[in-house]
Structures are given as structure tokens and as C-alpha cells.
């Protein structure tokens, strides 16, 4: 059944990615098809996660590939909050191809099958993995918003003639939504890290590179919110800082996981 659900979900995400590309080239033509692709794909992936949860012995996404599967679900779910709005469709051009690639990677690593065996308690994993992945999904979305901000800001600065033909969300709105997303994601990351530290103190164990980079990621986003609040950092500088934080998220998610999951 998991196999049966994976392919339609991937196909729907893929269709959405292509439709977003078409929408960017010819605004107004395929935006609706893209949004429906995302919705259907996400619902099918939700069903896949449900099947995995029902059949697994313990928390099914504790492996690197499994967590990637859950991460994609969080990212697309968070995107759906804004992505259905016509002006945010350009964001889909950044989010959906990423989702397709990561979802395929998750499958290649066995993260979409139903044979996972949990090594840790369900409650710890739900809190630790769930919160950290939800936070990373938020940071990913904020990065997408920041890319969109920088693109739109560049068009405005360069006085591009198509600025009113290919409409994007307003700069202040993008800046605000990115900040609000991070304001929700950072407490989730804080809690996720706290749960991990409590368990580490309780059960013992060493710190690894992933933990260090995660802590650095937390510091970058905390710094972002502090600079925004106290020093009035907004706009381009703030967007670059969000992307710097996202670079650390990419390192945590793709470059360092083996040490932590091992």
C-alpha cells in the first residue's frame, strides 16, 4: 500500500513543479493545476505517513531517510498555508522541485516503506524529531520566501518592465511572513533541542557535529529575530541572514545526518 501511495504523491508533486514552471513563464495558465497538484500530493503523502505509522513498530521516521519523508510533508504542508494564494505561486517554483527531489531521496533511502523499527521511545521521537523537522520545514519555507523577496526586490531596483505583469507578493509582506514563519519555527526548534538535551543528560551520550550545527542554526535564527526586533533589520540584509541560516539547515539535513542517526 505504501508503494501504491508513494508514486501518486511523487507524481502529483512533480506535476505541480512543472505547472509552477509553466505558470512562471505564462502567468495565469497553470497556477490552478499547480495548486491542486500540491494539495493532492500532500493528501496522498499524508495517507502514506498514516500507513507507515499504523504498520511500523514504533516511531517510523527515526532513520535519516524516514525523517526526510516527514520533513517533505512538513515543508509542503507549511507551503500550503500560503501557496494557494495566486501571488505566492512563484514560491512553489522553489519549494516543489525541492520536495520532489527530497521525497525521491527519502524513498531511495527506504524512508517510505513500512518496515521501520523504532530504536527510541515514541514520545521522545515524536517530540524531538517532530519538533525539529517542523522547525526546519518552517526555515525552508522562510528561505523560499526570502528568495522570492530578493528576486522581487531586484526587479524593483532594476525597474524591470514586467514588474506589474508578473506579480509577486509585496516586499513588506514577504519580509513579514518570513519573519513570522521563523518566529513560529524557532520555538519549535528550541523545544526539540531541549527534549534532545534532556534525553542526552538522562541517558548519557556524546555530542556530535549535527548537534553543533543545529545549535549554530538556532543561534543564527535567534540572531535574526533579535536583530530584527532591536536593530530594525529588514529587507535585503534580513533575507540574506535567513538564507545563511537555511544553508546550515541544508548541512544538518543532508550533509551530517549519518553521525547523528548512527
Amino acid at each position, binding site marked *: 500500500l505504501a508503494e501504491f501511495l508513494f508514486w501518486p504523491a511523487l507524481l502529483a508533486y512533480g506535476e505541480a513543479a512543472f505547472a509552477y514552471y509553466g505558470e512562471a513563464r505564462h502567468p495565469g495558465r497553470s497556477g490552478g493545476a499547480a495548486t491542486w497538484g500540491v494539495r493532492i500530493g500532500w493528501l496522498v503523502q499524508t495517507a502514506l505517513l498514516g500507513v507507515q505509522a499504523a504498520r511500523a513498530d514504533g516511531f517510523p521516521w527515526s532513520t535519516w531517510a524516514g525523517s526526510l519523508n516527514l520533513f517533505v510533508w512538513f515543508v509542503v504542508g507549511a507551503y500550503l498555508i500560503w501557496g494557494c494564494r495566486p501571488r505566492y505561486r512563484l514560491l512553489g517554483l522553489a519549494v516543489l522541485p525541492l520536495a520532489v527531489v527530497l521525497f525521491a531521496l527519502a524513498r531511495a533511502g527506504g524512508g517510505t516503506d513500512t518496515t521501520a523499527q523504532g530504536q527510541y521511545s515514541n514520545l521522545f521521537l515524536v517530540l524531538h524529531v517532530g519538533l525539529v523537522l517542523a522547525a526546519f520545514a518552517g526555515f525552508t519555507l522562510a528561505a523560499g520566501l526570502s528568495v522570492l523577496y530578493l528576486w*522581487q526586490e531586484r526587479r*524593483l*531596483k532594476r*525597474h524591470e*518592465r*514586467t*514588474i*506589474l*505583469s508578473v*506579480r*509577486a*507578493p*509585496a*516586499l*513588506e*509582506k514577504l519580509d513579514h511572513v518570513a519573519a513570522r514563519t521563523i518566529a513560529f519555527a524557532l520555538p519549535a526548534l528550541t523545544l526539540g533541542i531541549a527534549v534532545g538535551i534532556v534525553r542526552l543528560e538522562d541517558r548519557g551520550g556524546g555530542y556530535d557535529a549535527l548537534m553543533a550545527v543545529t545549535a549554530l542554526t538556532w543561534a543564527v535564527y535567534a540572531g535574526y529575530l533579535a536583530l530584527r526586533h532591536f*536593530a*530594525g*533589520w*529588514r*529587507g*535585503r*540584509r*534580513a533575507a540574506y541572514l535567513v538564507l545563511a541560516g537555511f544553508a546550515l539547515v541544508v548541512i544538518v539535513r543532508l550533509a551530517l545526518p549519518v553521525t547523528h542517526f548512527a
Partner: protein
Amino acid sequence: MSVVLVGISHHQAPVELRERAALDPERAGELARTLAGERGEAVCLSTCNRTELYLAEESADEAERKAEAALLALEEELGPSLYRLRDEAAALHLFRVAAGLDSMVPGEGEILGQVRGAHDLGATGPILDRLFRDALHAGKKARTETAIGESPASVSSAAAALAEQVFGDLNGRPVLVIGAGEAGELAIKSLRARGAVIAFVANRTRDRAEELTRAYGGDALSLEDVARSLEYVDVVLSSTASPDWTLTRGDVQGTLQARRGRPLFLIDLAVPRDLDPTINELEGCYLYDIDDLQAVVAETLAGRRREAERAETIVAGEAERFREWQASLDVVPAIASLRAHAEEIREAELDRAKLSGAERRAAESVTAAVLNKLLHLPTIRMKQAAAAADGVIYADAVRHLFGLEDER
């Protein structure tokens, strides 16, 4: 008589050049009168998009030379950007200009009034008077028979739409207005229609600033206080006639810290420009001058462009009618001579007949009708031949056949 056009427009000349050749209506009229002299005709059409000189003279080469010299006297760097058109091409160009087909915003309405103003202030005679009246007719016809002027696309609405690209909702956004030209007032209306609030109005004369605050709200400022008010506004709209910057990069840079990263959208509708263009390089500052706005608007007007294709057909038809009229001028003297000659013969023969009063009246009526019927077809044919470009040959033939050479 030939019609000659020499000019520059937004197609070849950037705003930096056009602003140096821009003339206010009074100076444009003065230049036209100077160029026309005692026997010629001249009109100067000067807008923010173009400065064009229309001359009607016997020698097209001489007229072109005079017009070029007049424009180069305004700005010697104009040379490579100048275009030169004659007769049919010049007429078609003016008709397209009047219809808004040569504007950055197809079908924009302001140009029709500007063409009318140039006509009123110009030194016109039979040729240019007819040319400009026909151009105004063509402009109105294109607008009434197509939807080219219907979609809400203008520099002022584009300015407000761009402000929304920065801020989203403009509701309650404070605006600083510097100067208050006609274009500026249109932009104020567009911004207010979207919910923006006029916070300050600055003008060279305090009275005018206070007059505007009574109309639109806000506080009146002197131009010296403009920089200090930047901290409190999100949108700046400038449209003064000042030859100097009303806001420099330093003025804006000095307020960035106090603005704490809030973006600032600046609209410069003035020619010459009011706002230092390097302000656009500052973080969070977005400056659009008249060229930028017009370029943006031009891009959004696909619908108008479709209508423009229909308007082009209308304008081409009107231009053709003008061409026919102009060409018919070549045969008009021959036709007039022929009719005068025929009338002379008729009168002479009636005198020789020594008729009574009643008989004379009856004979006059009959002979006049015969004459008109006889000359009607040749008159029409000569005008048609003139429109087909061989009118001069026909005119010469008529003069030769009827012995009118001496009357030329």
C-alpha cells in the same frame, strides 16, 4: 508646400536628453513663431516624451535645416537622436502621436490636449492648420471607435500599483508630496484611492502648499523641511519644475537609520528630474522616474496594444485623406483657372446676346448649370489624379489645352 518634421522622442532619446530639449508652452510658441518667419508655418510640440518641430515651406531642405538648427541650439548632443520626416510620413507620424499610438502608454489621453495646445500656440497657415485639425480628428476618432483609451493604465496608476508592490496594502500609508504639477495631482488621486494618506505637502510657495493641504489633507512644508519629514513617510511623490534636486542621496541616507529598515518608495514625475537617481542605490529605497514608470506601464498594456492595431487602421485612413488633400493642392490653381476661364467666356457670351432681364436670368441659370456639369467630372478626375501622384501632369495638360498658361 512641403511639410517637414524634425524631432526627438522617448524612442531614441533618454530622459537626460529630452529634459534639455523640453520647452514650456510659451517658449514652444515663441520658437514656432520665430521659425515660421513672415511667410512660413511652424508648430512646436513639446511634451515630456517628445520635442517636435513641424514646418511647412516651399523648400523642404531649407525647412529641415532650420528645424535641426533650432533643436541643436537647445542641446547640441541631440544630433544622433533626431528623426526627420516629410509630407505623408510626417503627417502619419503626427496622427499617430495624436491618437496616442506613439506614446509609451498606447492611447494615453494627455497627448491630445498637448497637440491641441501646440496647434493653438503655433504659427499655422493653411497647411499646418489643416494638418493639426486632421490630427486632432484622427486622435478623437481612434479613441471613440476603439477601446485603446479605456483600460486604466497611466503613469499615475502605475506609480500607485508599484507602491503596492513594495507595501502591499497602501491603507494608511503616509505620503509626502513635493510640488504639485498636473501629473502629480493625478498620482495623488491614485494613491489616495488606494487608501494612502497625504501626510505632508511641500512646495516652493507656501500658499500653494496650503492650498493642496486643504484639498488633500496633511501639513504644509517648505522645501527646506522636506528631508526632515522623510522619517515619517513611506511614499514620496515629487513633481516640481525645479531645475535642481529636491532630494539628494545624502538627504535620504541621513534618515535611513531612523526609518529602521522600513522601505521608502519614491516617485519622480518631473522633467527635469527632481530626485537624485542614486537614491535608488540605497538599501530599501525604490526610486522610479517618469521613464521607469512609462516603461512599466507600456508592458502592462497588452490589451491596449490589441486595440492599437485597430486604431492604426483608422489613423492610416485619416492620414491618407490628408495626403489626398495635400496632393490636391497641386491641381487647385489649375482647376480655379479653368473655372474662372469658363466663367469669363460665359459672362462674355451672355453680354453679347443682349437679353432682357427675365431672359438673362433664365439664360444665366441654364448656362451656369451646363458649365457646372461640364466641369464637374474634370475637376473630380484632376483631384483623383493628384491623389494618385500624377496631378501635376494633368494640371499642366489642362493649362495647355485651355490656354491657361498665362494665368499660372
